[in-house]
């Protein structure tokens, strides 16, 4: 394989991973915009979804579609419960309260999972299909399916955000919660819709990540740093920024491997955060609300 072919293959892989990161980053940026805190449990929502998909598909005799459907419903429910039982009660508190609680929630979800299923890695029952070569690029049909799934889910999320009353109300609450309330928008209902949407996004991202690699307890936690990096790079609070940021982080991670080795791949997100904070703290597409 020639040099440029190697990089092309890495870029394809990075693009697929980037779309998954973008979904997590979109969840983070939406919660940030509306509920005003960085949700550190985002990754563990994904892990929960991956394990649920595995469990449900095994119960259904190997049906992946059934497993994914159950995972999306269960994760939406989990996120809604997290809002109703926990985050709703923290409204009006300083940012650190929901932030610390989201980390506690991440620990609780992850370790409750491992209490029941252990820490051994497992996989989703995806069919193994031979890669097809297109002009020197080896395309895995599975990767194409994952990318398509991510793209469709992201498109659906953007339609909800920009073309429906639900999205309009969410943006109203994000922009000015008091003004939104005066205009007759019920903030509690908007919040519940937000968490349902965020739960579903994390669920699909978790299933896609599980299909692409293995299911293990730390899979979501490890995606948290790149997802934060994507949200910050795109501009915190900007949904389209999360998409752009996610794809760029995914590409940068994969393309860094020939240069710095695979261990430091996970450090790419950190470096990107540092550079963005140094050069343009508001991110690529964000409004400047970053300074204290």
């Amino acid at each position: 394989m020639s040099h440029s072919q190697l990089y092309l293959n890495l870029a394809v892989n990075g693009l697929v991973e980037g779309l998954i990161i973008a979904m997590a980053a979109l969840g983070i940026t939406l919660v940030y915009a509306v509920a005003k805190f960085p949700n550190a449990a985002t990754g563990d929502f994904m892990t929960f979804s991956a394990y649920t998909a595995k469990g449900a598909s095994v119960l259904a005799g190997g049906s992946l579609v059934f497993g994914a459907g159950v995972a999306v419903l269960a994760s939406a429910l989990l996120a809604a419960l997290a809002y109703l039982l926990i985050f709703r009660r923290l409204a009006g508190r300083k940012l650190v309260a929901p932030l610390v609680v989201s980390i506690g929630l991440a620990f609780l979800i992850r370790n409750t999972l491992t209490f029941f299923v252990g820490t051994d890695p497992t996989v989703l029952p995806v069919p193994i299909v031979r890669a097809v070569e297109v002009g020197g690029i080896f395309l895995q049909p599975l990767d194409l399916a994952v990318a398509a799934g991510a793209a469709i889910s992201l498109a659906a999320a953007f339609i909800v955000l920009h073309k429906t009353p639900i999205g309009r109300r969410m943006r109203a609450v994000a922009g000015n919660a008091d003004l939104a309330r005066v205009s007759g928008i019920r903030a509690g209902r908007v919040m519940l819709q937000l968490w349902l949407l965020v739960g579903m996004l994390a669920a699909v991202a978790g299933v896609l990540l599980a299909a692409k690699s293995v299911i293990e307890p730390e899979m979501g936690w490890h995606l948290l740093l790149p997802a934060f990096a994507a949200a910050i790079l795109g501009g915190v609070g900007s949904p389209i920024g999360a998409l752009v940021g996610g794809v760029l982080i995914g590409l940068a991670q994969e393309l860094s491997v020939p240069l710095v080795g695979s261990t430091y791949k996970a450090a790419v997100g950190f470096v990107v955060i540092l550079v963005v904070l140094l050069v343009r703290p508001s991110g690529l597409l964000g409004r400047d609300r970053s300074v204290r």
Partner: protein
Amino acid sequence: MSSYLIAVTTQIGIYGLLTLSLSLQYGYTGLINFGQVGFYAIGAYAAALLGTALGWGPWGSLAAAALFAAVAAVPIGLLTLRLREDYLAIVTLGFAEVVRLTIVAEDWLTNGTAGISGIARPFAALGVGIERDLAFLALILVALVLVAVGLGVIVRSPFGRIVKAIRDDEDAVRVLGKEPFVPRIKVLCLGAAIAGFAGGLQAQYIGYVGPDQFISYVTFIIWIAMIIGGTRSFLGAIVGAGVVLLFLEGSRFLRDELPDISETALASARLAIVGLALILTMLYRPGGLVGGKDAR
């Protein structure tokens, strides 16, 4: 005093130091540091490498552990402390992870996942036995008291009043002509130095360092200890560290009572309870179980 009791008290002392440093940074100054384990790791590896590869004495290694961690905090502070408060949280979380990755990847320096062993402790003259363990414990407890008293003096000093004023209303501090940035970065570095010192003590106590000792779990144990003890009480920080470590240690004894549950499941249950405790204390007792009078 049985050697087990000495071991548990030693760990409580080391975590007590870590909790004190977080209490200074978060409780008194409002800095959300989610990367305490990164500074702890830098201190531990500094003491380990200086003590073994360069043959420094244990006392010099401990001082260097604090210094290295403090220096590592400077660029992080420069970059984040002028920005929104949650950026420090995210950057320190990433920093701690990158420290661990670096330890794994740079095996020419750190011996990678195999770690470094043979780290010497002070009081070598006492031989290997309970006297030496007791002497080391005494050292830790003296350090703990000195740090707690020293921090108490600092927060009551004019500098401490500025720090608390910045936490409560930084705009008011600015209007009075004080720039919040400089006190903040000083506190970040001082806290990092204490965490690095604790790392040096831990490296010498165990005699070994490896990347598995420095996972994010450590940071959140420190957070829960601080919150349980009351974020604005140095005595509370030490009590909190004691309560959390006694719970983690004590639950190991359940092993004998619950033979049907595997070791992994028990470890998971412990951590799930830590997560649940973090949620419940933030919901119902944000000022801590001991302190109580905390502004929300």
